[in-house]
């Protein structure tokens, strides 16, 4: 297990260096001198040159990249241009919020996709409804779903707060009330795609001999479905979680913006709109590293869910 983890991390390293270099050079190359952005349009050329020299922006890009990546590896991600704070202190309190949102969304999507598609009672009714719901989950953009949920549950019914975030310290109930709609919004797409993957596997597993044996023993359809078919159909869903994690960050960006959740995604959007590229670069790298690590985790989970598989 440990050798696998180490080997996978070593394999990922060159890719990460390549992507970080690509990002750094294209962002700094295309945006031009950050000093101009920081001082505004009316700044004199002398002032811009002075700031460039002070911040090291007049060095060759390759040198700037090396010092950036050196800093990143030692935990110094630079300073934000628009918010007078270090990137790290901006990011740290936001990461747990996005992580919680993403984790819950995946959990809700996985549970609902597997359970709803395994129900054997009133199959003729539930199956088409679940399929339709799945297509809607995939094709309705996050922002639209989020706004519709806000309109229904907050504006019309007044059950839940419209937007915003409430930390754990405000009490569990408040926290959950603020969390409910964002999690639901983010999970919809994954409910749809997990359902597709799960249903295909479920149908294949259902025809296996051991399922027929289980039925022949006299087990009820529900017991067969949940005890024998479900555990054996969930593997492709776990693999798929790893593949879709990248997209999850995109969904989180939109969802956090809709619900004004103070997470990494909403920070990313404001950094992009303000062209605050130390923050942009840091979050992009965070996403890439996060996705790589989560993929590894999904592979490890795979061996837990199916002990027959040994990763070499």
């Amino acid at each position, binding site marked *: 297990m440990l050798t696998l983890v180490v080997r996978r991390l070593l394999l990922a390293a060159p890719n990460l260096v390549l992507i970080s270099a690509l990002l750094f050079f294209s962002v700094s190359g295309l945006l031009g001198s950050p000093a101009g952005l920081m001082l505004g349009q009316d700044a004199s050329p002398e002032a811009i040159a002075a700031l460039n020299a002070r911040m090291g922006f007049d060095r060759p890009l390759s040198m700037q990249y090396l010092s950036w990546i050196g800093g990143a590896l030692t935990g110094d991600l630079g300073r934000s241009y628009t918010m007078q704070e270090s990137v790290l202190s901006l990011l740290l309190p936001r990461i747990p919020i996005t992580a919680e949102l993403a984790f819950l969304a995946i959990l809700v999507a996985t549970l609902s996709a597997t359970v709803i598609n395994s129900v054997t009672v009133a199959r003729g009714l539930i199956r088409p409804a679940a399929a339709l719901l799945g297509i809607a989950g995939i094709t309705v953009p996050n*922002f639209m779903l989020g706004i519709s949920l806000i309109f229904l549950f907050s504006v019309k019914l007044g059950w839940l707060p419209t937007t915003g975030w409430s930390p754990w310290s405000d009490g569990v109930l408040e926290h959950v009330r603020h969390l409910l709609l964002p999690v639901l919004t983010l999970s919809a797409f994954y409910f749809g795609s997990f359902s597709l993957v799960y249903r295909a596997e479920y149908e294949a597993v259902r025809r296996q001999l051991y399922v027929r044996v289980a039925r022949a023993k006299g087990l009820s359809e529900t017991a067969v479905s949940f005890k024998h078919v479900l555990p054996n159909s969930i593997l492709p869903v776990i693999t798929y979680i790893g593949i879709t994690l990248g997209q999850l960050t995109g969904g989180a960006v939109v969802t956090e913006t809709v619900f004004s959740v103070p997470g990494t995604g909403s920070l990313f959007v404001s950094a992009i709109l303000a062209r605050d590229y130390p923050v942009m670069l840091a979050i992009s790298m965070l996403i890439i590293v996060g996705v790589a690590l989560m993929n590894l985790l999904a592979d490890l989970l795979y061996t837990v869910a199916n002990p027959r598989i040994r990763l070499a």
Partner: protein
Amino acid sequence: MPRLKLLSGLLIIAAACLCAAAAPLIAGYDPTQTSLQSLDPPSSAHWLGTDELGRDILSRVVYGARISLTVGIGAALVATSIGVPLGLCAGYLGGKADLAVVQIVDLFIALPGLVLALIITAMVGPSLKNLVLVLGFVMWPPVARMVRGQTLAVRESVFVEAARAVGGGAGWIIRRHIWPNVLHVAAAQFAVTIAFAIFTSSSLSFLGLGVPPPTPDWGGMVRGGFDYLIVNPAMSLAPGVAVAITVAGFYLLGSREA
């Protein structure tokens, strides 16, 4: 079920195309014409009411089909013209060419499409042309992967072996023997790419990086109406429904799994 899926997809696409082509006939008003009747509720004169600048919401939604379809189809064309040749070459030639393409595709998968599109659009500036190019550039890897997979399967066919035996060159075999058998996969992927290009471009507009105003653009309209959700929900919900239905139309047409 597959027939129903295909039919409903086609019907939705036809309706969207009709809106785009005959927008001046369907919409009762100029989509950028402001008036003093701002934030009117739905009425017989304005079926969905008016927005904060007094523009007719229904007309803006109808005209919005033009932007969405242009971006969606344009981006899918760009993605296809990059992804199909690369996928064909990688799949047929194998070896180093295959390795290189697969490597690049894997690199792209590490960064999600929307995030990459956000970064690039922020750098090059939002405009209709840039959106088409950026989304096309972001969306070619799945096309290449699909085409490569199908090419790998077709390459092993007996008729390809026969073509090679009579002395056919790689270019000729790909054109005459591989491509006709990959076409259906590429066509389905083309429709799915349109769906996700519209999906992504509307998300970009929602985040403030879409086609600049006053052009009626669905994602931007949803964002604009968000602040007036209590006054006139149609301002936000109508363009949102339009995006969702159009995306579903192309998705139903192209997706093999649904």
